[in-house]
């Protein structure tokens, strides 16, 4: 059941990214380019996504566990720290350099593999570099 839920959620996520045109890096960069011909569409993607998922999170506060019986995995960290802000800053630079954040990278894989495949391989390499090398240093 868990696998079925995950697949259904993934399909919805991919469809949503495509309909919102976030799988198009030109559209994303047109939103990030405040000094150019600015396309505000992506702000409305955030409004729609936050609005709907806020309902889900609110409902879950009245539930003991998720529908499949798994406990809710509330994120453990609650206080902002330098790692959070430093990581977010680096991520934003990479997003601005490419026009892809991680979700759209996957959404574009079968549509524009010439870009999405090298993007995803380098992104995963960066993730492994952090998880396996940098995060381990004392």
């Amino acid at each position, binding site marked *: 059941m868990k696998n079925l839920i995950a697949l259904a959620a993934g399909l919805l996520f991919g469809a949503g990214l495509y309909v919102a045109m976030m799988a198009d890096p030109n559209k994303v960069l047109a939103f990030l380019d405040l000094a150019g011909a600015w396309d505000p569409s992506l702000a409305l993607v955030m409004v729609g*996504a936050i609005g709907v998922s806020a309902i889900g999170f609110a409902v879950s506060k009245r539930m003991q566990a998720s529908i499949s019986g798994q406990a809710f995995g509330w994120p453990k960290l*609650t206080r902002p720290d330098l790692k959070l802000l430093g990581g977010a800053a*680096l991520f934003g630079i990479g997003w601005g350099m490419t026009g892809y*954040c991680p979700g759209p990278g996957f959404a574009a894989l079968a549509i524009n593999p010439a870009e999405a495949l090298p993007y995803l391989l380098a992104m995963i390499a*960066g*993730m492994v570099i952090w998880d396996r090398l940098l995060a381990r240093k004392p």
Partner: protein
Amino acid sequence: MTIDWASFTPWLALAGGALIGLSATVLWLGMGRVAGISGIAGSLFSFQAADGDRSWRLLFLLGIVGGAVLVHLLTGGLFEVRSGYPMGLLIGGALLVGIGTRMGSGCTSGHGVCGIARLSMRGLLATLTFMATAFVTVYLIRHVIGLGGLA
């Protein structure tokens, strides 16, 4: 600032956003997991999943690939596929995305959508930070370094 009204797609943006929100809700209410793409991909590919369960993570990511291409085929394509983008910029940026999202524990989906939706201070601050550096980066690339010809 000039707004490009001709390219503005408010209804598609809201509808696509609502679908993303629905997906996050299905994953959260269905199995108690946050729909954070970098967290899911990172713990899958670094073999560091806290619960050791890789199958649902792989299926979720494959679902994203499939869901997008399905709508692409059904609609006949909503946009022109980008080509000719400098490979160095793409690879270098992707490396930073990978390192930054793992260091900062999230990306646009985990912090920007789910974090703000559950009123998390960490999510809000991370989102403001990556939005700010993304705006500055695009400004530098297009208007200072002068790669403005890049679509």
